[in-house]
């Protein structure tokens, strides 16, 4: 988080440089590494259907259309050895109705497709309450009425917590990853800015923030993606596929997490 604060400074430096800088969209020959299995499994603490989505990745140059993987055998197993099979529908989306994750329990995902079985485990953490969200004038362009969103919550002391936030502006998801751990904030009442350059926020916009409490491997997955974001002005790290909790390794993750959403109409 300190690094993110630091990026304000770099942003200021970039403003000066932008006097001479320019950007353009270019064509690159990026080859074609498509057809890899992508597993996205989520299990929440909310009562209801839980989803696992199977797809294949696509070449960079084609449309954002990802072929669904159909006909797979998908199941989730809980702490007590109960197995819940997931059924497909629509194509590539597998779900189980009426399953609710319990804090502290370990869940295992099993996906069998193309003659291979993929296994992943995730621990549902204890929920941490999102106290409130608020809007403040943005650091830059405040004159134009731009706002930034701050989240407020009490971090429980002496235990490691990891958080992921998902931000929506007028029901549209902000294309930015927000993943934090409590290394610098353990036990504190925390106010954190969700800094993003994707959607400008103004008065009368409806902003929703979902807080997910995630386990350590899932945090590492999202944190790696966050470090590789293209709007990471602190300098990018050499990108790579984030470390997955799925074995054998493939693209994607399996996350057992808590969910809480707060909504705010910006004044």
């Amino acid at each position, binding site marked *: *988080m*300190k*690094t993110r604060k*630091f990026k304000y*400074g*770099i942003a*200021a*430096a970039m*403003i000066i*440089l932008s006097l*001479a*800088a*320019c*950007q*353009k*969209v*270019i*064509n*690159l020959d*990026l*080859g074609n*590494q498509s057809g890899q299995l*992508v597993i*996205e499994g989520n299990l929440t603490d909310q009562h209801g259907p839980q989803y696992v989505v199977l*797809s*294949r*990745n*696509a*070449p*960079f140059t084609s*449309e*954002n*259309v*990802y072929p669904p993987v159909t006909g797979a055998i998908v199941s989730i197993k809980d702490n007590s050895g109960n197995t819940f099979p997931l059924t497909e529908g629509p194509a590539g989306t597998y779900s189980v109705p009426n399953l609710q994750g319990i804090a502290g329990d370990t869940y295992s995902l099993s996906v069998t497709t193309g003659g291979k079985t993929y296994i992943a485990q995730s621990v549902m953490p204890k929920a941490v309450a999102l106290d409130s969200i608020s809007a403040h004038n943005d650091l*830059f362009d405040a*004159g134009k009425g731009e706002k930034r969103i701050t989240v407020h919550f009490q971090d429980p002391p002496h235990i490691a917590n990891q958080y992921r936030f998902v931000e929506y502006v007028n029901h549209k998801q902000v*294309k930015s*990853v927000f993943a934090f751990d409590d*290394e610098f*904030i353990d*036990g*504190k009442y925390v*106010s*954190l*800015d969700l800094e993003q350059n994707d959607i400008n926020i103004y008065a009368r916009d409806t902003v929703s923030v979902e807080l997910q409490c995630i386990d350590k491997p899932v945090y*590492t*997955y999202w944190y*790696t993606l966050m470090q590789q974001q*293209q709007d990471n002005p602190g*300098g*990018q*790290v*050499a*990108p*790579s*596929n*984030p*470390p997955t909790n799925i074995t054998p390794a493939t*693209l*994607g993750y399996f996350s057992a997490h808590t969910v809480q959403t707060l909504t705010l109409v910006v004044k």
Partner: protein
Amino acid sequence: MTKALLSAFLILITLCCFGQKRYAISGTIKDGSTGEQLIGATIRIKELPQSGTITNSYGFYSIYAPEGEYTLLFTYTGYKPVEQHVSLHEDQKLNIALAPSNALAGVVVSADRPNNDNIASPQMGVEKLSMAQINQVPVLLGEKDILKTLSLLPGVKSAGEGNTGFYVRGGAADQNLILLDEATVYNASHFFGFFSTFNSDAVKDVTLYKGGMPAEFGGRLSSVLDIKMNEGNNKEYTVEGGLGLISSRIKVEGPIVKDKGSFMVSARRTYIDQFLRFSSDSTVRGSSIYFYDLNAKANYHFDDKNAIYISGYFGKDVLGLKNTFGTNWGNSTGTVRFNHLFNSRLFSNTSLVFSNYNYVITSYLSNADFQATSQITDVNLKEDLSYSMGNNHTLKFGFNVLHHDISPGDISSSASSSFNDIHVQKRYGFENAAYISDEWKPSNSLTFLYGLRVSSLFLLGPGTFNTYDAAGNVTDSAAYKSGQIVKSYINLEPRFSASYMLDDENSIKLSYNRNTQNIHLLSNSTSNTPTDLYVMSSSNIKPEIADQVSTGWFKNFKDNVYECSAEIYYKWLQNQIDYKNGAQLLVNQDVESQLVYGSGRAYGIELFLKKKYGRFNGWLGYTLSRTEDKFAAINNGKYFPATQDRTHDLSIVGIYKLNDRWSFSSDFVYSTGNAVTFPTGKYNVGGLTTFSYSERNGFRMPSTNRLDIGATLEGKPHKKYHSSWTFGLYNVYAHRNPYIITFRDSKTIPNTTEALETSIFATRIPSVTWNFKF
């Protein structure tokens, strides 16, 4: 092993010490107008064509001959040569003052006589730049820049536009030892790397060793950049300075006691932040962004045999956003040196050196205030001796004791802040070394330079030290008391160079050297950030080791007016460091758990053609090279191109002096793009378009090329003062050199993705500077 090497070494030296009685002529060579000592000036005995030596870092020389009548010739680039008759019957002293050959312009067009030092010297892989040349080469915004100019030499590659980092023969940017008056400069950049910390007004001499490292240097794998500050004029007071587009600078120098001591103070400050006042955004208007630096030096010569030098550097970058955020970072160094001449053969220099790099980041946000600090402080005691044995042997030996004190990171905050106070344990250690080397001329055409350096690291308590397994889990944890040795490493570093002169204009050279590195920069960011973190070797991090062999052919023609060379090198690298995915390096007590280790190799050929003299001078350098890394977890453990791998690298520099008032210069660069990792596919997780990657550094950035031009107009000669104008045009044909390429969802075509290329200096950038001196 150590014993065997040492005894072989001693036998070799003893064997060679015979022959007729020789006498020494020794002394100091100075600039006649300012009293500055000249480093690397040449001394030759006309009657003994193959004799010759150069002055050391303090302008001191000694040369030997049997009893007789001789004519000594003293030369230095940019100065009128001096001939002096000597009747040699005993050891004698001879101090010489050389007059600048073109005091007005300081341009290298001079009447000085071309020499063939580059052919005769056994040292290879060395680059020397004169300040006159550095001042002529056009640069961004008119800020003369030593590091940028160095990157125009073969084998030296700029880390990129807007980055003063440089790569030498495939080494990473942190594998260069940058010394300012013997003090390590940890972060040699200002303003995120756009400018270097070296104010060229204050610099006297720049030498870069990229291979065949002399034994007196060590501690880094790939190069030593040895920068010496000006001593100051000991004849008269002068003030000079310049007003530029983004910065101004001033230098004052003069005698403390005429001909005995002098001082120099040089300062520079940018005013980039003044541009912020024009911004329409109130936060930007209320922000600060500037840097300044200060160089100071004084010396006093007690007598012919004793002299003291005190020098210091202080630089700071300041960057702040109104009521939100502030940061500053900078280096400070201090050096006290004492020269003592025991006799005409034994010269000693004792140095006490201090060096510090620190950064402070402050957040003023309510509920999220904090201050984060980090620093590294070195104290180094160094003793260097050189002993001329007369019979074609010059011995150099010495030792140093270097203490590191590293505060990796501290965070302090108010009670209402979201942040906790965090204190990462300080780390202490000693990096000690001893060396001996001998330059031996067994015949007129053959010269050997060989030596041995023993380097060591002692990582000391107090503190808790963890050992990690490959997955980053703690396997062992132990608490150590203050001063207790946690881990120690001792490495032997043999150094060897040989040169054989085929004739006066041709020589071949060969060298081998081993270097080790015990202090490592951790940074997994591709850009230059001030949050540099240094760690010492430990039970997890092994000393980095490089072995380099190189060979080259050196040729001069047209009476040494042209120099050309071809050098080939091959380097093996061990214990190289990379980072795990998602590594968190800042303020992390367990930072060593975030690292992975591998090896590397680098090889290439460097071609260099230089015209040193005449109205038109300049050089052409070309490097064909490959640098590869190997890490078990990356690309299936196969060799892959390192980020700094550039297949082709070409630089052309031309300087033309039209008349006494106008001179023109230009430089052109071309290089293959960096090896980078681009996505090969995409998928969707968490509602976001996410890119998939198939191999590390499997792609190339587009190649870079750029032409810059400059002109200098000297003011009309005037008794009291002198002024000049420097004009520059950066990126003459407005080429869009890529700075970074990023990938995102298309802003124009829905449901597709696009690659976005950012160029930072995509336009012509003019500059003008007014310089004065009185």
